[in-house]
């Protein structure tokens, strides 16, 4: 009012001043002096204070009973499938053959339907080029949300969870990891010398392939504690998992998101990876595009 409008600091600068973000900066004193003599800017600062008060005064919103019931039911269902997964883990995978039904039953109900259908179709055409076109839709969401550093979706089994039985080496890891997270057509790639059987479609039957030494890490809880050991915190969701070998030794390739979206972190761990023991064999940052 008293001074020309052009002298006003911007709204952002006033917000920063209000939040104490300008403390110690050269501009702080100037803006403070301006606000002290400018009614409109002082009003805006007061408005910020009022806004903060109103936000703090918003009432609590208890969870509605129907939502609470729904979540209780989902957790009960999860507890049941968790229990059956434990029951099944012993007899499974002698020669790497797990009945599809029991492998599927570890998925929560709402994932199971879709992936069972996809897996069924995929098995019919296993080995054929183009299998991934059928599953790419599912995997895309898993990859995207994982890249966003999410750690919580119920479809976390939609991450690329493969048991390729490939033998990775330090020379081939980067390409292999890019294939896991980026290339929709990994199943159609020329198999590595070691994988004599037809490549399995991604996610079709992850419990049935891969070295048996890695069986323990197929448990979501065990895998989660391994990942937590690597990252130092719980809840990071891998972009891709491959039960494979590294330099000829059984190893799990765990691909994690990085703060830099242009790269991913490739962790190679042995069968012992768990809380307190990463059993780390190799670690590498891999650019998403090679």
């Amino acid at each position, binding site marked *: 009012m008293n001074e020309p409008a052009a002298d006003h600091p911007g709204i952002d600068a006033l917000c920063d001043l209000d*939040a104490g973000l300008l403390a110690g900066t050269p501009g702080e004193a100037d803006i403070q002096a301006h606000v002290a003599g400018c009614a409109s800017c002082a009003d805006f600062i007061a408005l910020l204070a009022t806004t903060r008060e109103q936000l703090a005064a918003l009432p609590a919103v208890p969870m509605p009973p129907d939502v609470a019931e729904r979540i209780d039911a989902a957790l009960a269902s999860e507890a049941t499938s968790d229990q059956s997964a434990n029951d099944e883990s012993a007899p499974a995978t002698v020669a790497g053959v797990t009945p599809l039904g029991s492998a599927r039953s570890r998925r929560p109900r709402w994932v199971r339907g879709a992936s069972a259908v996809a897996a069924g179709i995929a098995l019919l055409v296993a080995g054929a080029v183009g299998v991934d076109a059928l599953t790419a839709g599912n995997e895309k969401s898993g990859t995207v949300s994982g890249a966003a550093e999410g750690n919580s979706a119920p479809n976390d089994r939609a991450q690329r969870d493969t048991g390729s039985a490939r033998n990775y080496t330090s020379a081939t890891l980067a390409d292999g990891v890019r294939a896991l997270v980026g290339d929709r057509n990994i199943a159609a790639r020329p198999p590595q010398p070691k994988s004599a059987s037809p490549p399995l479609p991604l996610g079709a039957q992850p419990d049935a392939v891969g070295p048996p030494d890695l069986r323990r890490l197929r448990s979501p809880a065990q895998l989660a504690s391994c990942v937590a050991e690597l990252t130092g915190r719980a809840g990071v969701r891998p972009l891709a998992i491959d039960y494979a070998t590294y330099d000829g030794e059984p190893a799990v390739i765990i691909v994690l998101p990085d703060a830099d979206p242009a790269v991913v972190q490739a962790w190679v761990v042995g069968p012992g990876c768990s809380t307190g023991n990463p059993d780390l064999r190799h670690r590498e940052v891999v650019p998403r595009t090679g």
Partner: protein
Amino acid sequence: MDGAPEGVVTGAPAADSDLELVRAHAAGDPEAFGELVRRHRDRLWAVALRTLGDREEAADALQDAFISAFRAAAGFRGDSAVTTWLHRIVVNACLDRVRRRAARPVAPLPETGPDEPAEPRDAMGERDIRLAIDGALARLPIEQRSAIVLVDIHGYSVAETAVILDIAEGTVKSRCARGRGRLAVLLAGIRNPDPPSDVEKPGVES
């Protein structure tokens, strides 16, 4: 602003029993996780609802988050308080949803339009202000909104919010600062029946 809820950063008394519940759940106690959920679900619900601005989406996100926490609990190492860990999972579930629906505009909470005050301006009661705030919140970019929800609405410290959102403390402060400014501008027209034109001049003219 730093009036953190109990036990979140440094682990006050309540955090220990949360941790015991997590450990019990990991050890196979079938009741433990349900107790943990019951203990914190109201607060987590409020965070999800205000972050997403949509009841159904918030319910979906919370369900996703609790399932995820159920599975991940075995790997919880106690580096942060259990409540921080739970909030982190819930907020990430919310952000996941927002990013997936990025093409769609954010839906405001029911009962209010994003652009219009729900009542004539001179009749703004407390409830209408709340609705207006919800509507204005829905118009913030998700990065600002999630920070404002945690710090300004739910009273988490900047430090804990930084852990929950996995960003630097300075980033939390600046997102809150800018988000507040935006809210203030959005709400100004509602709050002041005849807003003096100079209220908005600073941003326009500089």
